[in-house]
């Protein structure tokens, strides 16, 4: 087999390309073996609370610890204090496997500790 004649730059581009492709193939193969197609596994955390023009904004982060993407993730936040209940909700288009996304819900007053409950109410399996 005759090896083609190439200059140093061309061999460098080839070597870098081959290394990048090999790394990508290896990582994909590892992901394929290591992470079976387990269903989405979502959890929501309250990150912060701040005053906003439209009320009190509560920042939520939803994290997917499962092996597949969840779509149209609906998150509900319920703020109950002194006999009154306020509900906030946010829908996040996609939470890919292993990734997290953030959103905010708005209330008229600042929720105290133990007065706010957040949960995922449902999602699509794309």
């Amino acid at each position: 087999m005759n090896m083609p004649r190439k200059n140093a730059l061309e061999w460098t581009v080839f070597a870098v390309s081959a290394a990048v492709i090999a790394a990508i193939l290896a990582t994909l193969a590892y992901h394929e073996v290591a992470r079976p197609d387990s269903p989405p596994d979502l959890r929501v955390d309250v990150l912060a609370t701040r005053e906003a023009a439209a009320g009190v904004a509560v920042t939520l982060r939803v994290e997917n610890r499962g092996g597949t993407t969840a779509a149209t993730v609906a998150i509900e936040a319920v703020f109950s204090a002194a006999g009154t209940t306020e509900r906030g909700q946010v829908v996040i288009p996609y939470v890919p496997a292993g990734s997290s996304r953030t959103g905010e819900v708005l209330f008229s007053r600042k929720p105290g500790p133990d007065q706010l409950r957040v949960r995922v109410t449902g999602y699509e399996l794309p």
Partner: protein
Amino acid sequence: VSTPRRRAHSTATSVREYARGAAGGLLFSLPLLYTMEMWWAGFLASPRRLLGAIAGTFVLLLGYNRYAGMHHDTSWTEIAIDSVEELGVGLIGAACILWLLGRIEPGMPMSEILGRVVVQGLAGAIGVSIGTAQLGGDDGFRDRPPAKADAARRPQSIWSHLALAACGAVVVAGNVAPTDEIAILGAELSGWQLAGLSAASLVMAAVVLHFSEFRGSVPHGESGWLGVVQSAVTTYAVAVVTSLVLLWFFGRFAGAAAGIVASETIVLSFAASLGASAGRLLLQS
């Protein structure tokens, strides 16, 4: 038969070739870099599917580099090396543009970054390949026999026809395959409209192949209307298969009824048929 280059390119010549490749990669894949469904495809596709897509694209690059224009006298080793380079340039280029567009960020998990880069990089690699062969002057091919002499003794094999038709189909249909519009059209079109669309695809392929008066458009040297019909049917068959593969990759068939699979395929095959006929002639010239 392998006829390797008699001498290596100068560095300036190879820089020009890479610049042409990069320009081609951008030219053909920019619509996809700006398409939301393409970003999503990166994390919706399983690693297995991404691996399959890399393999499929590599075969397509091999076919294109083997049969497009001036490359046909080259050895398979050289073709494979060129294809690896084009794939690498496409992937690295896609990563840079996605980063500039804020679609990949340092905080993201590796699987999401990888998915986005691979999906866009594969589209980019095909563009790089076309750009290297088609854009700009012929300084990259100075050391090869003149194209005209080659064209006369170039074997018009069925493989060359199929490979270039598939490349043209992927380039044109790939721009619309990931979009939701295909699903909407597939769901809303009636049987008559779909029949009309497939007839139009066939007629378009026949007209393009016949009136382009391109010598190589008939695979087996058959002339007259029979040759045109034969060529149009082959071209449409390539378009249908390419559409099926593209739609499967973008996850359109999960849980879909057979009727939806068929109608989405017919909708995309119209675009793929244009690519397999007109696009092919552009790629080959």
